[in-house]
């Protein structure tokens, strides 16, 4: 019998999911026992834990790591290369792991994990407010111009109602959504110079600026924005689809909650960053690796997805799960709010991870400059230029 220690972050999202999956897994594989290490509150703390424990006896056998941090972890040589396992498995696509999906958890061609829960940014809106502001809740805005216009109308309702909340804080994910949506890129292909200050980037940051100036996007902390939306005081909110289940619970029947695709600056070439995490194998013990691979496959597979999606709002990371009525087919018919994320799956590209040791700092620099735009203490151009030069200086100089 093999015992696997599994670590995961954000128990608020994943505890039930993990319990369900592991229970089912153990039923199917009686010779493998799953035990959970104490979960970490956030992705960051999870990574810290793994870094500290790497190489020690405390290190778990499997963990779940944010997609944008895979690169950093890989540079420290922490995850086990899953390439050989994939190769041995052969027909991964049949099991729902298309190349596209495998690629989400690859770093420079190395398969460091299997995407477990994936998300993309969507638009949430308060249909009641939209109606009150004279909009049509059944045809949500499709372009940023429409968003700005609708936001302004909602804001004009007064009574403390804000037009828009856009989750720009914390990391560069939502900026990526604007940037990728305009067809832009973070860095040049050689990863040596900044590319986000190009025209696409300028368009992206101007959208943010307009959201503030015209659309009624106030300065919120992440939680404050969310809370205000729950309270029915915000018309339109842009954030991950992963928060859907929670949002539904918190809104209850206070108002008519709807979701829709997030507008793209370039509707043709626009892409969206993939959020979420991947299951990563850490154990160096060959026997355990075998068992761990089984679990990883199972968790990231159709069954896992069928548990994760309804439980959170993440989009299925397994194509089989999405299509097969055995798993989620019916779910989407019954739960139209979840469709927005699903419908954007074809646009999902990996969340860009910066090279070098300053990877995290780079995202921080971007966020800080975004905050200047939101607080209107800098023009979009200034902020973008500053961000670009700061990021430039943080890139590896080799």
């Amino acid at each position: 019998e093999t015992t696997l220690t599994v670590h995961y972050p954000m128990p608020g999202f994943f505890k039930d999911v993990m319990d369900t999956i592991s229970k089912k897994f153990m039923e199917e594989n009686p010779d493998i026992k799953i035990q959970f290490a104490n979960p970490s509150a956030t992705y960051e703390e999870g990574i810290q834990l793994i870094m500290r424990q790497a190489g020690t006896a405390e290190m778990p056998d499997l963990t779940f790591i944010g997609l944008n941090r895979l690169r950093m972890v890989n540079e420290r040589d922490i995850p086990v290369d899953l390439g050989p396992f994939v190769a041995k498995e052969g027909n991964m696509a049949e099991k729902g792991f298309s190349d596209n999906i495998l690629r989400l958890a690859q770093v420079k061609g190395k398969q460091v994990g299997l995407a477990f829960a994936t998300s993309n940014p969507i638009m949430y809106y308060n249909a009641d407010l939209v109606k009150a502001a004279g909009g049509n809740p059944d045809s949500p805005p499709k372009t940023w111009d429409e968003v700005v216009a609708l936001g302004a109308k909602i804001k004009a309702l007064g009574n403390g109602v804000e037009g828009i909340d856009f989750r720009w804080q914390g990391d560069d994910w939502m900026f990526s959504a604007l940037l990728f949506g305009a067809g832009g890129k973070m860095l040049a292909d050689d990863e040596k110079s900044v590319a986000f200050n190009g025209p696409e980037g300028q368009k992206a940051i101007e959208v943010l600026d307009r959201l503030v100036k015209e659309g009624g996007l106030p300065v919120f902390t992440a939680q404050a924005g969310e809370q205000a939306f729950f309270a029915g005081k915000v018309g339109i909110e842009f954030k991950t689809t992963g928060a859907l289940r929670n949002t539904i619970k918190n809104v209850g029947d206070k108002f008519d909650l709807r979701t829709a695709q997030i507008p793209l600056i370039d509707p043709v070439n626009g892409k969206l960053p993939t959020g979420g995490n991947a299951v990563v194998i850490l154990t160096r013990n060959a026997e355990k690796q075998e068992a761990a691979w089984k679990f990883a496959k199972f968790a990231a597979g159709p069954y896992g997805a069928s548990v994760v999606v309804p439980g959170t709002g993440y989009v299925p990371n397994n194509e089989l799960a999405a299509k097969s009525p055995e798993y989620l087919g019916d779910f989407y018919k019954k739960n139209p709010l979840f469709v927005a994320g699903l419908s954007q799956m074809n646009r999902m590209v990996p969340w860009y991870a910066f090279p070098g040791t300053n990877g995290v700092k780079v995202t921080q620099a971007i966020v800080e400059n975004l905050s200047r735009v939101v607080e209107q203490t800098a023009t979009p151009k200034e902020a973008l230029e500053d961000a670009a030069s700061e990021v430039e200086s943080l890139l590896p100089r080799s």
Partner: protein
Amino acid sequence: MSTRTLTPGRILRLSILSFGALIFLAPYIFMISTAGKEQSEIFSSSLSLIPQQWSYVQNFTKALTRVSMTRLLLNGVIVCGLIFLLQVLIAIPCAYAMAKLKFRAARAMMVLVMLGLLVPIHATALPIYVAFDRMALLNSYFALVAPFTISVFGIFLFLQFFRAMPDDLIHAARLDGMSELGIIGRVIVPNAWPAITAFAIFSVVAHWNDLYWPLIVVSNQAYATPPLGLLYFRAAEAGDDYGALMAATLIITFPLVAAFLAAQKRFVEGITMTGLKG
């Protein structure tokens, strides 16, 4: 002085105190109210403290069942109890020596104590973690307790308190044939209850609520402390089940409040040095 009559001054005093208490308690009032609300009811545009639908039972049931609350509370009691006991046993003799004995190293000790006060656990966590790992001590009560057995705060607090004690009292004890340890146990401690109780409150509260260190050294849920347990109720990216989170928080905070209520008489009981003249 009189407690019977309501003078204007007294009314003013009472209103200041009550108003302040209301403000200080506001977060708790909100917390208690939230613990009884359905998730969808929590964030709403109108501030209402009374839940529309009483969900206390559901929320508390959730808090009690989703984590093994008894295990957590028991761990909390064991860890805090051990820490406090060892801290007191180690800090009091040291503080006594520094306060009342002529002692060359007292000055150097003072520097150490101040340094200890300033060093945040965040700074020393990593080396200690590595050392514990090398010695395979992680995931144990030992790992949770050991780094806190030395409380510089305690030494500092007791030092201040002991200094104020009259020397004659200690002199009398020496002549009565007490050893220095005897003096500590029979004279200093009984007369330092306010300080010890105050310290107990701080120590227990700090370690009961400590999240940082348990998070680092404990990965086995058998040793999880209450706040670690609380983490299951919290998330980063989106909201969480706030009603249950607040319920769990209340459950975890309750023992502290009870302990405080029991202790607070002690530290204001007033040990006056009435055995002395001058």
